[in-house]
């Protein structure tokens, strides 16, 4: 879950900021939109016993939301991402930039402008 103390820049892709299972779920949710639990386990290929706790955490942390759907006397969760990939990306970027400015002050800002000039 995106907490600054858990960011690990040595890892690949989204797993820098999320656990591998969280990253996998978010990737699937962003590309497919609304999904049932059974579809999520199928698409991510993660067994329900491992995915269920993570889904609870993602919902609690606000990255996903779910509603209860009743159909033919059965109940099921329908999951959806709370914010788009772009919104999460900008949230993470802001957090990291904030922490850099917090630590290095003007030095960090100087490097940002050099960096954007280069790009």
């Amino acid at each position: 879950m995106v907490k600054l103390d858990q960011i690990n820049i040595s890892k690949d892709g989204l797993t820098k900021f999320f656990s591998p299972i969280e990253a996998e779920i978010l990737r699937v949710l962003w590309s497919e939109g609304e999904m049932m639990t059974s579809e999520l386990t199928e698409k991510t290929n993660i067994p329900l016993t491992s995915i269920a706790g993570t889904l609870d955490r993602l919902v609690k942390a606000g990255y996903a939301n779910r509603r209860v759907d009743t159909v033919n006397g059965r109940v099921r969760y329908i999951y959806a991402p709370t914010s788009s990939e772009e919104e999460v990306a900008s949230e993470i970027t802001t957090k990291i930039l904030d922490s850099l400015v917090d630590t290095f002050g003007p030095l960090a800002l100087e490097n940002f402008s050099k960096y954007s000039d280069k790009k």
Partner: protein
Amino acid sequence: MNLFGEINCLGLCLKTSEIASLVALLITISIALLAAGFIIKNPKYRLSTFVSAQLSVLLAIFATFYLMKCEEMLTIYLYLGYAGISFVMIFGIIRFYDRLLIKRLNAKPAGSIMKWTQEFVDRMTSATVYYYDSAVPRAFAAGRSIFVSLGLLELLNDDELKAVLAHEAWHIRNNSRTPYLKQLALMTFSSPKGSEIEYLADSFAARIAGSEALSSARRKVDKVFI
């Protein structure tokens, strides 16, 4: 009142008292019953031998206090205090525990989303079925309430769910007795026998919903309904 004095006194009293042999007999009986509990296969008899062993340990404890014939004993105060506090904890908490859980889990009556679950439980015992918001499949009973997570309702088919509900209903039906088991276990410094109780609840569930449904529910959600 000092502890070492009392221990010395205990040795002396055991040597001189007439009922020392009674204490010895009670302790032998307890050990024999405990040993028998390990050999017996039937969980119902196992449980009752275990309870008898604990009762005989309790008698031995009180006989020991009696034979020491002291006016004021620190150990007996400590022991009675311990028994009293555990009694309040076990019986006090159990009365309110399900109310507390309903609040904490923000649980809602399961009858409102799956009507038949409440009707099914009504036929076995008087308890309310609650569901709470979690994808992790789980079921448990407390007080006069059965709690199931939405993840469990989602995962199991009707027959499997019936097996789980019957298992929990058995707990509710016998809940009035389990606190005594816990209290007894605490007072004799042993652990309550959980696995036998679970086994009895499972055999009831198998009778109600069929062993096929029970084992398939166990396979799906292993160990998450207790």
